[in-house]
Every structure is written in C-alpha cells, then in structure tokens.
C-alpha cells in the first residue's frame, strides 16, 4: 500500500481526492441495486433463508468496506496533526476532572495501537500525566475508535453513533476519575515508578505538506483496512447467518427489552474475555438487534468486547500490579453495565 501511496502523483493530490470521492459516492448510492442484481443472478429469492442471508452479505460487505475506507482515510489525515507526544505534552500536569475530559477526547483522535499501550502508558506517567487521566485516555482510545463510529453510523444512523460516542466518553472519563481518586499509584510495578521524567526522546518532526497528509491517509487505509477486512467478512458472514436463519424475535426473550435484569451483566461477562475489533463485532450487533435484542444490552456487549480484552490485560500486567488491573477492569465493566441499562431504559 505504501507503494501505491508513493505512486500517487504528488502534483495534484486534491484531484485524486475529488476523483476518489466521486467514485465512492457513486458506489455507495448503488449498494442496493448491486445486491439485488447479484442475488437475481444467483437465482435465489429473498423469501428463502439462504437468499436472505446472501442478500445481507452482498449488501453489507461493500457498504461496510466503503464506510471503513472513508473514515480510516480521514483519520489517517487527522493523525498527521496529533501525535502521542503532542497529546502527552497537552495532558501533562492536568488535574483530575478537566484532564480526564481532555484525555478521553484526545483518545479518539490520537494514533494508538494496542501494542503501544505500555510505552504510551509509561510515557504519559513519566511526563507527569496523572494516573487517572492516563487511564481515561487508555480506556477511550480503543473503545471510541474511528472504526466503531463509522460502522455504527453506517448501520444505525448518527443518533446511535452519537450516543455510543457520548456513552463511551462518559465511561472513560468517569472510570479514569474513579481510578484517580482511589490513589493506586503504588500498584504500579516498581520499575515503572523508578522511571524518571524527562528522558523523552526528542524526535524532530517536519511539518508535513498536504500531499504528505493525504499520502498518510492512503497508507492508513492500506494498513487498517488491510488488517481488519477478514474480521469484517467473518463478522458479516456470521451476521448474515443470524439474519437469514434465526427466527424473528428469537433474541427478544434473552436479550430484548423484557428480558430478565441479568441480561445486561451476562452480556458484559460474556464480552470481556472475547477479543474482537469493532469491525468484526458490529455486523453481529446489527443482526442481533434485527432479531429483537435490546440496543443497550447489545452495545454493552460490544463495548466490553472492544474495551476490555484478555490480551490487553496481559500486556498491562507488565506495568500494573494485579489489584490495579482488577480495579481497571471492574470500574470499566461497571461503567459499561450502567450504560447498558441507561440505553435500555431510554430507548
């Protein structure tokens, strides 16, 4: 993909962006007719289970991939304006409260990969970012990410995407505040506490040109979409199966509005050890909702899958003592639980 990025003519980057935009809109406008046409070719009817499942798959796959490409491209450009170093400088010395709000918000736009969680964590602490503020960032960054928002927007509209954004931010802010108030600094591993502030690497970064920013967007697409597309396909296939074969209202009894009170905690408990990214889980979420599952329960499930995962805990174990990890997981899970109940009550 980087080779493609290098191949793009640098003289007229905006021309390429315009062209891509036009193609994108044309493709997006024709999703339904495309799915109908392919289904007609296969000779299957939407009245059959297989036909309905297939239609779901053919319609959703290009739709999700188009949305994903667009948002990941934009985020690739946004990332050229924010770096972890800048975010850290901005957050350093902030107090609990305002600091948590900034940290959670910056968590959405700062480039972050889960394998960098530990360096970032230590980098923040050593520069004087309070522990609670650091946690707000660390919780928001994976949970309220561009992939999740793009998919929610594409499948459920801006209201649900906006609610998810707001609720995700609130969970991150409040959980960070709670962890900060608990004063758990001594539950960091000793070698982490020994790291002195001020040894941050000085990286000279030139201000990129717009052509370079657009290049960054293109290579971000290559990197992210190239990585998540198999999960997207698997997720949509599973979603298509549920959509075509599971009877209407099947989920209503277990995960619906009138389901017993324990359905939300059960969703969280099942979700925490599961590890999938937003791209894989959202098509499943869409199918579950289509079968009568309540939105709050399903979103709680989704948040716990994305925000809390076993591999991340294992990575964090290198810097945090068990009690702090348990507190972190507990506080976040509790926050998600409340979000689930609130969604179910409001909608």
């Amino acid at each position, binding site marked *: 993909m*980087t080779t493609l990025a*290098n191949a793009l003519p640098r003289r007229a980057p905006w021309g390429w962006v315009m062209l891509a935009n036009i193609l994108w809109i044309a493709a997006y406008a024709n999703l339904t007719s495309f799915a109908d046409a392919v289904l007609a070719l296969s000779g299957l009817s939407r009245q059959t289970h297989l036909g309905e499942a297939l239609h779901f798959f053919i319609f959703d796959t290009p739709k999700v991939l188009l949305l994903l490409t667009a948002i990941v491209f934009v985020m690739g450009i946004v990332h050229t304006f924010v*770096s*972890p*170093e800048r975010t*850290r400088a901005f957050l350093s010395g902030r107090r609990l409260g305002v600091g948590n709000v900034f940290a959670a918000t910056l968590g959405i736009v700062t*480039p*972050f*990969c889960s*394998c*960098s969680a*530990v*360096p*970032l964590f*230590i*980098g*923040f602490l*050593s520069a004087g970012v309070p522990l609670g503020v650091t946690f707000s960032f660390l919780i928001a960054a994976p949970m309220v990410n561009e992939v999740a928002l793009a998919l929610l927007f594409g499948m459920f509209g801006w209201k649900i995407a906006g609610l998810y954004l707001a609720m995700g931010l609130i969970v991150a802010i409040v959980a960070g505040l709670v962890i900060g108030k608990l004063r758990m600094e001594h539950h960091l591993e000793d*070698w982490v506490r020994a*790291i002195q502030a001020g*040894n*941050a*690497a*000085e*990286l000279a970064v030139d201000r990129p040109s717009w052509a370079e920013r657009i290049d960054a967007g293109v*290579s971000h697409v290559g*990197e992210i979409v190239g990585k998540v597309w198999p999960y997207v396909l698997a997720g949509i296939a599973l979603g298509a199966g549920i959509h075509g074969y599971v009877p209407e209202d099947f989920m209503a009894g277990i995960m619906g509005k009138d389901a017993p009170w324990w359905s939300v905690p059960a969703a969280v408990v099942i979700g925490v050890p599961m590890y999938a990214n937003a791209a894989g889980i959202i098509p499943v979420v869409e199918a579950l909702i289509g079968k009568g599952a309540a939105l709050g329960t399903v979103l709680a499930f989704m948040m716990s899958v994305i925000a809390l995962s076993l591999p991340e805990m294992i*990575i964090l174990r*290198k*810097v945090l003592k068990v009690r702090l990890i348990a507190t972190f997981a507990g506080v976040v899970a509790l926050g998600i639980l409340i979000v689930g109940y609130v969604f179910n009550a409001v909608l």
Partner: protein
Amino acid sequence: MKNVKVLGTGCANCKNTVKLIDEVVKAKGIEVQLEKVEQIQDIMTYGIMATPGVVIDGKVVHAGGVPARAKVESWF
C-alpha cells in the same frame, strides 16, 4: 559500522520494520549491526511512546508504525 536497534515487543509492525531495514541495507550493500530490543523495560529507557521505534547509534530516529521506505533509505 552503524548500530541499528529496533524497539518493539514483537508485534507484526516491529517484525516488518526489521525486515524493511534489512532489505534497505542489503539493497544498498551496507553492513550494519541490526538488533531487536524486545524487553519493555529496555524499550522504555529510550523514552519512546509508540512502537516500533528505531535507534541508530544510540539516537532515536523513529517511533510509531512502520517507517516509510524513503525514510529508512535516508538513514543510511
């Protein structure tokens, strides 16, 4: 001979970075001492916040994501 260290806990991007540097130096016919630093404690002594990082002769030249090939070529 330059000493090149790639800092990273062993994720895919770190491996790709090592591979890329290896390719570039081989293409240029330069010999370097290429090392991987995988222990998080050691990585943190360089003060980077995102992996993979690249250190040449003790100086951090890159952090976060696989560097662009052009960037790697400019180091040697």
